[in-house]
């Protein structure tokens, strides 16, 4: 993973903004998600209270995470699952590869999992000579395209039907009609059905893990989550340690917010809960189940100002609400996570220094906080990360010099005024109808920005004149003001007295 420097982010953002196909696709998809979410939440009784309640659950759970993890481990083991622990992504991948080797696995099917995107499990499997097949339609599309997901919920939402038809045609070796989406879907069904039935292992993540019964819960619309965990003889689930949910009652709250926030569905089509491998008397289902509890930088956030980020349930609502995400697209974040949650999570998990640009990929408009089902204060954390960059001297020398220069200049009233006056004179040839003619392309990727000019007279100037020179009545205003204050004080005193005597 190379990280996201300012240079890299700018480069990718420029590319995305200049791509009209991508812009159209991301605009359309995020709008669909936004509208559906708003309608779905409006239908829930006391939804604001429900979100507060959910936040309280998440916060309380994280405050005793170690205890809940132990409960989960005990219950999952009692149900017959093997529980493993992984300190980081590499360790999680090693465990998966090891299990796959024990099974002599050639091919594994996967259902969409952000945790295994985070660890780049597919790469590790391929290096071990094992073929991973993504089965979520969107994940399969980007696997065929050799790209990372561009959205937590809709990994291929940046792809058009033409691009999808091209990828599928190549895969099945005959041309497919891009305008017949049901036929494209049917083709995916045919190819992937065969994979489900012949795979040696199914690999999934978990949307949540219920401690009281040691269950993992997988939410899908396509049913691939059920197939991956039902058809192959063994199932491996990779679960981030923050996905713990203490009880089923809590899980109900979680689920009723997840589908609505993600796609605007009251519940996704399949809520699949798995508790251990198939029982001896069951006629189908995996005979072996492994759960890998993965830390990968999460434990270090507990008890810090960034703990809140672990309350995230990966619903993607903040991506859909984010004006920056809508312009720069998911790939600019250089990671499986993107949007506001990515901008906070990536630096925290994978290093602030190598991802210096991400805390700045936000206008701090607050839209993410408004839609987040767990009310995670992402804007606050984005600001805190920026402050950390200053404290840790991560910002470039130039930026540091410029910022401290400006800070100094703002304290020099005279010099500042002088420079502003100079600017007023020298801007003249660049002005067209109160706007600057050109903004350097550096700051103007879409070519539509027109900055206002320096005003003829500064506010400071106007204010001074108003008070002292131009207005002969200024001293009178001062006296009037004082009189008003005195009257108000007298009035308040009377009120207080009146209150006592009555």
């Amino acid at each position, binding site marked *: 993973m190379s990280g996201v420097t300012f240079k890299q982010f700018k480069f990718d953002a420029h590319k995305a903004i200049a791509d009209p196909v991508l812009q159209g696709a991301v605009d359309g998809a995020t709008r669909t998600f936004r509208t559906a979410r708003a309608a779905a939440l409006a239908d829930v009784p006391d939804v604001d209270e429900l979100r507060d309640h959910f936040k309280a659950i998440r916060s309380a759970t994280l405050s005793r995470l170690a205890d809940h993890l132990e409960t989960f481990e005990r219950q999952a083991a009692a149900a017959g699952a093997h529980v493993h622990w992984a*300190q980081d992504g590499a360790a999680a991948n090693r465990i998966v590869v090891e299990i796959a080797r024990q099974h002599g696995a050639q091919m594994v099917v996967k259902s969409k999992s952000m945790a295994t995107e985070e660890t780049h499990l597919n790469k590790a499997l391929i290096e071990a000579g094992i073929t991973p097949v993504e089965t979520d339609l969107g994940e399969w599309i980007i696997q065929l395209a050799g790209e990372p997901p561009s959205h937590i919920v809709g990994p291929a939402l940046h792809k058009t039907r033409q691009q999808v038809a091209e990828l599928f045609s190549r895969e099945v070796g005959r041309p497919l009609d891009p305008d017949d*989406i049901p036929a494209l879907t049917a083709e995916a069904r045919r190819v992937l059905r065969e994979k489900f039935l012949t795979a040696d292992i199914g690999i999934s993540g978990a949307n949540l893990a219920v401690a009281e019964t040691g269950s993992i819960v997988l939410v899908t619309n396509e049913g691939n989550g059920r197939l991956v965990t039902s058809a192959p003889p063994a199932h491996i689930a990779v679960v981030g340690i923050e996905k713990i949910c203490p009880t089923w*009652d809590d899980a109900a709250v979680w689920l009723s917010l997840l589908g609505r926030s993600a796609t605007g569905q009251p519940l996704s089509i399949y809520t699949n*809960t798995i*508790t251990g491998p198939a029982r001896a008397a069951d*006629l189908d289902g995996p005979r072996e189940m492994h759960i890998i509890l993965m830390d990968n930088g999460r434990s270090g956030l507990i008890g810090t100002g960034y703990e809140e980020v672990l309350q995230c349930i990966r619903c993607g609502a903040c991506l859909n609400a984010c004006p920056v995400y809508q312009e720069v697209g998911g790939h600019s974040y250089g990671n499986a996570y993107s949007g506001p949650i990515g901008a906070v999570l990536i630096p925290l998990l994978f290093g602030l220094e190598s991802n210096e640009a991400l805390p700045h990929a936000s206008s701090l408009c607050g839209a993410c906080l408004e839609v987040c089902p767990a009310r995670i204060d992402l804007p606050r954390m984005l600001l805190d990360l920026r402050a950390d960059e200053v404290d840790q001297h991560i910002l470039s020398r130039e930026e540091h010099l410029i910022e401290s220069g400006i800070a100094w200049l703002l304290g020099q009233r005279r010099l500042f005024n002088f420079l502003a006056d100079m600017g007023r004179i020298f801007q003249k040839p660049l002005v067209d109808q109160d706007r600057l003619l050109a903004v350097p392309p550096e700051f103007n990727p879409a070519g539509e920005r027109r900055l206002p000019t320096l005003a003829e007279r500064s506010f400071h100037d106007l204010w001074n004149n108003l008070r002292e020179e131009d207005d002969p009545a200024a001293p009178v205003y001062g006296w009037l003001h004082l009189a008003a204050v005195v009257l108000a004080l007298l009035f308040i005193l009377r009120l207080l007295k009146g209150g006592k005597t009555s």
Partner: protein
Amino acid sequence: MTARDDILNKLRSRGRVPETPPPVWQSRRRFESLAARFAESLPKVKGEVIRVESPDGALETLDTLFNDLGAQRIVANGDLPTLDWAARWPDREWHLVGQSDGDLRAFCAAADVGLSGAEAALAETGSIVVAAGPTKSRLATLLPPVHIALVPESILMPDIFTWTAARRNETPANIAIISGPSKTGDIEQVLAVGVHGPRRFIVILYGE
């Protein structure tokens, strides 16, 4: 030190003050008729609901459906009303989970219809709950292109909160809450059904 101890120690050493979790969220849904709400919700996500008065009515509906679908091969889970299915529909091929011999998986993969009962039905979302068990196959409700569920009105509940509140102690290996036919919007947000699971999800909701 093992990875396990390392992670747990790290978490415990953070000095996080334990918080008390909030009291359990109670369902706030009040429906005049659970059946009506169920029948209203499921079609919104392209599921189908057929309401009938009695178990007999349910079987007659099945007659019609089998004919309309041209269903030849039917796999049936053991959570259905007791009945000699093969005798009632003798010219169709049946696999009764837990009773019939033969390869269940292969039968499911080639079946026209998967037939099941349900543990519970949630009115708010038009969902049914199916569990795995010795006579209850997961693949039967997953591989065939059509899933028909026979659901008595007596197992209707308001919503997922009432369901988790009524949960019993023992947890089967698999429980699925199914809220419609398999679907995707992954190609340009265009809704397409039947991507991996059933294309059609039909609930016959019957009175008793």
